[in-house]
C-alpha cells in the first residue's frame, strides 16, 4: 500500500475510475466528496455490518456517531474549522467568532481558507445567526449576501491559505494575528511545539473525515481489511494520541488518553468535547454537495474583485 499526501484525492478518484484505471486503494475524503462520488457510482459500497463491533459488543452501526457511516464511506475522525490567535498580540484574547470579524476591537491581519466552505458559516454565526439556522439562511440569496458582507469587513486585511499546514505557519511568522485553521494543526503547534497560540471554539464548524474505496481498486480486499482495521475502536482511539481530532466511534471516546508527550489530557482539545460545543455547527454535506460549485464561483468572483 502506498501512502500519498494529497490536498484532495477526490478528483483523482473520479478521473481514475472513469478511465477504468485505478491506482488508489483507499482515499481519505471530505463528506460532500464521499457522498458525491458514491452517488456517481465511483465508489465501492462498504457494508457497515462487516465493520468490527465495539469491545462491549455494540454493533458498528450503533457505535459510530450519527451520520458517520454512509453507503460507501466510513468516518474516521471529526475535525473542525476553528479560529486561533497569537496570544502575544492579544493577551485578553478574542472569545467569540464575532471578534474574528471585528478589526476595531482586535486589529491585525487575518487569514482564512481560500474557499467558501466554513467561511460563510462562520461569517453568519459572527453576524448573530444561531448555529441551527445557518444553512437555512445560507440557502437564500439574502443570507449569502449577508455572509459575504461580513467577509467584506475583513477582506482587505485577509491572507488566504490553501493547505492545512499554512495557518500555524502564518501565525508563527507573524504574518497574521488571527487565522481560521483545522483544530488539530493549532493543537500541534500550541501543545506540540509550545507556540503561543490559543484556539477559540465559539463558532466552530466540525465535520467528518472519511475513508472510501474507489471502484476497481487494485487491492480491493486488502483495502477493505485496512478500512476495517483503521476504523476499529482501538485504532480510532490511538490516532487521537497524535492529533486532537475526535474519533468517530462512541466507544473510542473512553479510550482516548494522553497526548504523546505523556502529560496532556486530549479530551478538552477535541471538537466534540462538551465545552467546545456551546456554539458549534455541524457542517452540512447536503448543503455543500449542491451548493459547492455555485458558492465557490461566487466566492472566487468576490475574491477577484
Amino acid at each position, binding site marked *: 500500500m502506498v501512502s500519498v499526501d494529497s490536498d484532495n484525492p477526490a478528483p483523482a478518484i473520479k478521473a481514475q475510475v472513469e478511465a477504468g484505471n485505478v491506482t488508489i486503494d483507499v482515499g481519505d475524503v471530505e463528506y460532500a466528496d464521499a457522498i458525491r462520488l458514491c452517488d456517481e457510482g465511483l465508489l465501492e459500497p462498504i457494508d457497515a455490518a462487516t465493520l468490527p463491533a465495539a469491545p462491549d459488543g455494540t454493533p458498528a452501526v450503533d457505535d459510530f456517531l450519527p451520520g458517520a457511516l454512509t453507503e460507501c464511506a466510513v468516518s474516521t475522525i471529526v475535525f473542525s474549522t476553528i479560529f486561533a490567535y497569537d496570544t502575544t498580540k492579544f493577551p485578553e484574547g478574542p472569545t467569540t467568532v464575532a471578534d474574528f470579524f471585528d478589526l476595531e476591537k482586535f486589529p491585525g491581519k487575518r487569514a482564512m481558507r481560500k474557499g467558501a466552505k466554513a467561511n460563510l458559516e462562520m461569517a453568519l454565526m459572527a453576524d448573530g445567526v444561531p448555529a441551527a439556522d445557518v444553512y437555512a439562511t445560507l440557502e437564500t440569496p439574502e443570507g449569502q449576501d449577508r455572509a459575504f458582507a461580513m467577509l467584506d469587513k475583513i477582506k482587505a486585511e485577509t491572507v488566504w491559505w490553501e493547505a492545512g499546514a499554512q495557518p500555524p505557519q502564518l501565525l508563527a*511568522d507573524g504574518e497574521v494575528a488571527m487565522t481560521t485553521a483545522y483544530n488539530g494543526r493549532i493543537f500541534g503547534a500550541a501543545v506540540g511545539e509550545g507556540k503561543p497560540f490559543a484556539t477559540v471554539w465559539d463558532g466552530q464548524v466540525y465535520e467528518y473525515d472519511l475513508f472510501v474505496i474507489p*471502484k476497481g481498486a487494485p487491492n480491493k480486499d486488502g483495502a477493505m481489511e485496512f478500512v476495517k482495521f483503521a476504523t476499529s475502536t482501538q485504532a480510532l482511539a490511538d490516532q487521537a494520541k497524535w492529533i486532537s481530532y475526535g474519533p468517530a466511534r462512541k466507544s473510542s471516546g473512553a479510550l482516548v488518553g494522553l497526548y504523546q508527550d505523556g502529560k496532556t489530557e486530549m479530551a478538552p482539545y477535541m471538537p466534540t468535547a462538551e465545552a467546545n460545543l456551546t456554539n458549534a455547527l455541524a457542517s452540512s454535506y447536503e448543503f455543500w454537495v449542491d451548493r459547492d460549485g*455555485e458558492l465557490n464561483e461566487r466566492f472566487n468572483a468576490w475574491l*477577484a474583485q
Partner: protein
Amino acid sequence: MTDQTAPPGLGAESLTTADGRPLKAALHRAQARAKRRAFLLVLPLLAFVLLTFVIPIGIMLFRSLNNPDFVSYSDIDSGTEIPVMQNVQAWFAANPQGTEPDEAAYAALAADLVHLKEIKAQGSVGTRINYVLPGSRSLFTSSARDAAKLAPPYKEAVLALDEKWADPAVWQAMRSSAGTITGDFYILAADFERDDSGAIVRTAEKERIYLYLFWRTFFLSGLITLICLVLAFPIAHLLATLPLSKSNLLMILVLLPFWTSLLVRTTSWIVLLQQQGVVNDALVALGLIGTDGRLTMINNQTGTIVAMTHVLLPFMILPLYSVMRTIKPSYVRAARSLGATSWTAFRRVYLPQTLPGMGAGVLLVFILAVGYYITPALVGGADGQLISNMIAFHMSKANWSLAAAIATMLLFSVLILYWLYDRLIGIDNLKLG
C-alpha cells in the same frame, strides 16, 4: 519553396540523362526524393508531437463541448454505456421549447427517476444539471431515492416529492443538457447563463468572474511586458555596445536567472518580499518604515508582477540584444556629426532600428505571461491570480468540461498571438541565449 525546373524555351524535353530518361523527369524525381528524405527525418518527431501534444489538445477541445452525462451513464462494473433520461428527452423532442410540462412530462420524469435509481445514475445526472443550475443536484438524488413510490397522477406525485420540480428553470436546464454535444460550458465560461426560457443572458453581476479574469490576465501581462521592455532596453543596449569580452561576462548575469529553476526564483521572491522578509527588514532597519508599517508585497498583485517580471525579463533582453548587436554605431555618429542632438539621434536613428527586437521580445513575453500558472499560484494571493489558476481550480473540482472550455478560450488567444509572432517575426528567428 520554389520549384527549380529547367528554364522554358531551352527544349528541356529533349535533354536526357545518361541513362536516357528525360532530364526534367529525372530532376523532378530527384527533387521529390530529396523532399521525401527531408520529410522522413521530421516524420518521427511529427508523429511524437501529434501523439503527445496535438491529440491531447484535440481531446481537450472535445471534452469542452462534450458532456453526455444527461444522456448516458457509463457503468463502471459492466463497462457499458446505459442510456438515461430517455422518456424526458422523448417528451422534449415532441414538445417545443416553452411548453408547460404536462402530466405526460411528469410521467416521463417519474419513469426516468425510477430508472436512475435502479442503475444508480442519479448522482451523475444530478451533477450534470447542477453545473448549469446550481443547487439542483440533490433534487435528483433525493427524488430518485423515493421515485419507486410514485403513482399517477404523476404531476402531483412528483411535486409532492419536491416542489422545485415545478420550477421552469429545472426543465430548461434539462432541455439544454439533453444532448452529448453542448455549448453550455462556453456560455458559463463567458459569464453567461440560460434563463427560464432558454435565452442566453449575463450572469448576476456578483457571480461574473471569467471575463474579468481574462481581462486581468491580459492587463497584467501587458503591464509586465511593458516593465520588462523598460528594464530590458538599457541592459540590452549596454550589452550590445560594450566590447564583446565585457559583454559576454555581463551576459552571464542575464543568463543565470534564465537557467535557474522557476520555483527557486519564486521562492526567493517570497523570502525577499514577505512581511518578515529581507526587504521589509532592510526598510525597517533603515528607518524608512516602522515595524507596524511593513509593506505587503507578496500574496497580492504586486507579488505576481514583481516575480513574473523577473522570470520573463531574459526573454525580452535576449531578442533585443541580438538586434541591437547588429546596429552599426556609425549611424548614430553620422547623425550626431550632421548636427543632431544625442536625444534626436537616439530617437530618430537608433530607436527605429531596434523595433524588430522590441516586437519579438514584447510578443514573446506577452505570450508566455498570459499562460502563467505557477508564479501567480504561489505569490499572487487573491488579486494576483490569472485565468490559468481558475482553470486549475476547476480541474481540482473535477469539473472537467468547464476547465476545458476556459482552457480552450485561453488557447485560442495564445494561438492568435503566436500566429502574429510567426507573421511578424518568424519562428525561425526565435533564439535562446
